[in-house]
């Protein structure tokens, strides 16, 4: 039954993909001499359509929950608007497009060098022939590997000051909602894309080949940020990162302070937090944001920017100040 539903959904997306490509994109590409990108663009459109459908589906399912069972009630939702913009940019593939033009040729070149100089890489599919090359098994292995990598990437975002200033754009949201997942500094998005592209050089498969994997991850991460009381399922929250678990990560004073620079870094699975002792299971709801956003004396009333471009720009100012402090120390 699930297979049938997925197949039907795939048909719908593919039909839209064909219509959009043949009637809109291809004529433009032909006219402006970009036919060398036609096949990649056709393939990428599938992602874009999935992204749009994801937005519509998560909004349709999660927004009513936020309205009916909010964790926090806000008089003014203006602060959420920038997150809507971030979400559309991410889901329409604009970050991926930027990466494709800026960095993909470099990664292709490195892949070529790895082959020329016979640098070994891990071929995950062939670890246990007959087992690990089965699609479901292969999918699960890649899911776990990429999640493990995501956990450490996230820890490093909190650990290294300059990197934290980029990631702080995400944490500066004091009205966390289903839209917050894609609220990121664009430079950090590119760095993350480069990180996973580099990883894929060594495990042999581009994450982009796992449409279902990435789509699933995106949906789960939207749920993690939702501003709604969702029932806690005791065993399930040890299997998958729950909204409560992730909200703790965003909590002022808990999510990004302390000797490990925070807690609950897991992307899909809390296992790595459990393994590396960064898990915090306290379910008490705390305000989200960064401590120095709070008014004096609790914080410094620091402004992280109210609109997208201010948020992006102010990060560079914080980085510059940080580097000046280091230089003068």
């Amino acid at each position: 039954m699930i297979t049938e539903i997925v197949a039907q959904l795939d048909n719908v997306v593919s039909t839209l993909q064909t219509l959009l490509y043949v009637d809109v994109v291809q004529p433009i590409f032909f006219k402006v001499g970009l036919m060398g990108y036609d096949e990649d663009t056709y393939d990428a459109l599938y992602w874009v359509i999935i992204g749009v459908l994801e937005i519509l589906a998560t909004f349709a399912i999660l927004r009513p929950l936020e309205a009916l069972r909010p964790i926090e009630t806000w008089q003014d939702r203006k602060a959420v608007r920038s997150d809507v913009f971030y979400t559309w940019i991410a889901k329409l593939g604009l970050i991926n497009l930027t990466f494709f033009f800026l960095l993909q040729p470099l990664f292709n070149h490195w892949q070529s060098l790895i082959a020329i100089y016979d640098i070994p890489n891990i071929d995950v599919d062939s670890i246990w022939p007959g087992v690990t090359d089965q699609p479901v098994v292969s999918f699960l292995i890649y899911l776990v590997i990429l999640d493990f990598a995501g956990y450490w990437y996230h820890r490093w975002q909190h650990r290294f000051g300059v990197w934290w200033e980029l990631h702080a754009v995400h944490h500066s949201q004091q009205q966390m909602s289903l839209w917050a997942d894609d609220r990121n500094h664009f430079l950090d998005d590119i760095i993350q894309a480069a990180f996973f592209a580099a990883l894929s050089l060594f495990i042999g498969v581009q994450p982009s080949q796992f449409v279902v994997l990435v789509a699933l991850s995106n949906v789960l991460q939207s749920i993690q940020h939702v501003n709604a009381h969702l029932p806690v399922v005791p065993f399930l929250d040890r299997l998958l990162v729950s909204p409560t678990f992730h909200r703790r990560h965003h909590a002022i004073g808990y999510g990004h302070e302390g000797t490990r620079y925070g807690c609950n870094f897991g992307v899909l699975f809390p296992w790595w937090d459990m393994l590396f002792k960064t898990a915090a299971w306290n379910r008490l709801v705390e305000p989200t944001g960064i401590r120095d956003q709070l008014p004096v004396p609790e914080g410094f009333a620091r402004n992280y920017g109210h609109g997208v471009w201010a948020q992006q720009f102010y990060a560079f100012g914080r980085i510059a100040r940080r580097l000046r402090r280091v230089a003068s120390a």
Partner: protein
Amino acid sequence: MITPDGSSLIVADSVSNDLIFVDPRSGKVQKRMENIEDPYQLGFSPDHKWFVTAGLRLDRVDIYKYDGHDLTLAKRVPLGKTPSHMTFSSDASTVFVTLQDSGELAAIDLATQTVKWKMPVGNTPAGLWMTPGDRELLVGMTGEDDVAVVDWHKQQVIKRIQTGKGAHNFRNLDDGKHVAVTNRVVSTISILDYTTLQKVGDITGLLPGPDDMELSADRKTLWVTFRFARHVGVIDLASRKLIDTIVVGRSPHGLYFADRAPVYAPNPD
């Protein structure tokens, strides 16, 4: 790409960087050959001594020696930008490769694995077809609406045959006279007379993105993949009408069936 002895069909997997050998009749996987980097297009030289892969993403052509069973890498030839399709000279001395993004045609000496020359041909050259007697190279110009006719001896474009937007790939019709070319943007197939270098007709009413083609052994039906429509189509050549479509997976590309009309050498099988 069928192996020279006909025992295996090689399917190129450019994502996982390997070749999958499949029984051409049953479709059963026979083996996988790993670490074949970014194999977008494949070809055996007419003397079956060389196996060439065009690495579209890696801007490289890899040349392997073939002993009838195994492949041994001879050389990786950097070739910007975006090498895609290939064909060979009948004496197996040269492989010709189109470079999509730089709009060029390159000739590589197989024995020394060195680039002999490159020449501009136009916007986004794709499929290549050598006319019998090695007279001319026909180049499908996917960024234009014609097939470029190249005198490769003189490295000159000597004619352009108007077909339709997005001329892409070729299939001889095994009648000593005609070759079909897909026009992927306008979604038609043009029939060319390669003896006179003229277009003699078009097949219209197709699904979006006709790409690769195969001809039945009786020469009555032409099969085509519709790249942007997830179908394979069957065309009756007598009426030049699409008579059947078959749902396949996403973005079908190459097409092969065991009982097919011969492909004219030196074009890759």
